[in-house]
């Protein structure tokens, strides 16, 4: 069980980020929780493609006679990081507009639809 440490860390990080999103009232803390969730998913994707005693999949000055780790998963993770950046930027812009209009970032106090 000690060899599965990356997967146990992924499960704990998903649990922590779900607890932050569901239980906190401040909107900026909700955005932080979503950013932790996106980082945990990227870690899970990269840890899926690891071979025992493998090297990075690059042919420049590679040590002789070693296997390479799987390269497809790393390409998926590159795309996922950029999409996470775009989502976080748009959410923070919306939080700034809500603060300008209502004067607070507490999500219990912005339940009025029209003011």
């Amino acid at each position, binding site marked *: 069980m000690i060899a599965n440490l990356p997967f146990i860390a992924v499960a704990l990080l998903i649990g922590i980020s779900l607890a932050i999103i569901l239980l906190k009232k401040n909107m900026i803390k909700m955005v932080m929780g979503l950013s932790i969730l996106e980082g945990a998913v990227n870690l899970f994707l990269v840890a899926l493609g690891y071979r025992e005693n493998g090297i*990075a999949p*690059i*042919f*420049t*000055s590679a040590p*002789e006679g070693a296997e390479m780790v799987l390269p497809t998963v790393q390409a998926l993770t590159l795309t996922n990081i*950029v999409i996470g*950046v775009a989502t976080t930027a748009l959410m*923070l812009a919306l939080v*700034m507009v809500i603060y300008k209009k209502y004067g607070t970032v507490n999500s219990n106090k912005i339940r009025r639809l029209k003011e």
Partner: protein
Amino acid sequence: MTLGLIGRNAGRLLVPLIFIFGFYIVVHGHITPGGGFQGGAVIATGVALLLVSYYYRDCLERFIPITNFKLVESAGLMLYICTALAGIVVGSGLLFNWLNASGGLFGHPVAYGVNPGDLFTAGTIPILNFAIGIEVFGALSVVTLIMFAGLREKTQQEEDAEAAESAAPLVSKRKKGKGGRK
């Protein structure tokens, strides 16, 4: 709100080094780890350092207007689309690697197996790396600069009226005396 003398000069000395390092990561994308996205994010860090050391609205807005970063970002995406469409013009299919091992711009043949890397190999891949690097740099700089300026409180016509009003009392001060305008 600018920093002191040491802060401003240290920021001004470090920004070209950050640009050179980010450009090195972008250009060597097909030999070493790295590539377009990583190098573009490193170059955008240099713009963030420039933003912290000088206050943008007082010192830098006349020299580096935000329109230049928008042009750079659009040029990056257009270069990617034109390189993708060039595959249809030459032979078969979108994004076809037609410069690979052909003796043209990036067309040296590759020694197979483990080798020290050659910069001028691999066809259209360095061109696409350069386009994506420029696009990510422009996009992250535009997002940082726009969110730093914040929200506008007045509309454009009210701002023009205030600017005209604050310039007028220098003319009419001799006629009306003091205490005329707020």
